[in-house]
């Protein structure tokens, strides 16, 4: 069975600074996808960034980028130029590339606070 681990329950960053959220996963599969989702307080969970395991290049989306280390099974999220609106719970998630119904397996979450 696949597992996802986020070892940082809480993180804090100063506005305009950079922060990195950690995520490790365990799988024996070779085809899979990794995601970072953001859940603001009392709001919908939204996709921040995704990474295909077969791609060596790290995904980027504006101020968000990942450091995907496939051999180490590590998938960290870097947020540059942090903004107050980045404050939220961040979840790392795994999805199999095989026919398992598209289910997402989530980590425990990291609560990010942004200080003005």
């Amino acid at each position, binding site marked *: 069975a696949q597992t996802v681990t986020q070892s940082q329950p809480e993180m804090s960053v100063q506005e305009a600074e950079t922060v990195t959220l950690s995520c490790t996963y365990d799988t024996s599969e070779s085809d899979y*996808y990794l995601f970072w989702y953001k859940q603001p307080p009392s709001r919908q969970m939204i996709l921040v960034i*995704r990474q295909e395991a077969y791609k060596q290049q790290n995904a980027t989306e504006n101020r968000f980028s990942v450091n995907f280390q496939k051999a180490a099974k590590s998938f960290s999220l870097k947020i540059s130029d942090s903004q107050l609106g980045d404050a939220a719970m961040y979840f790392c998630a795994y999805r199999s*590339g095989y026919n398992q119904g598209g289910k997402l397996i989530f980590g425990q979450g990291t609560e990010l606070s942004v200080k003005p």
Partner: protein
Amino acid sequence: EADIYQTPRYLVIGTGKKITLECSQTMGHDKMYWYQQDPGMELHLIHYSYGVNSTEKGDLSSESTVSRIRTEHFPLTLESARPSHTSQYLCASSEGSGNFGGTEAFFGQGTRLTVV
């Protein structure tokens, strides 16, 4: 904003009552999911559906049941609510009649259920 809606947003109900949590999406997605989010914020899959008349149990055992009579609608029912059912319930959907592991899952705003 994603076109997936959950009602009610908040529900406080007495022990033994039957409840139905509603989830509807207007994106025509085949796959739909129910996740339970505990107070520690971790998410666990409790039900999913590949399409109409398809329902499967998720990784976390749940006393709830689901139905999928229409593509857009995926309600969750508890026949007899108990305090142990107190949690947040998130509904999600994603496209693809096949595997489509990399496609985004869209989430509703969640229903926070309290059983007293």
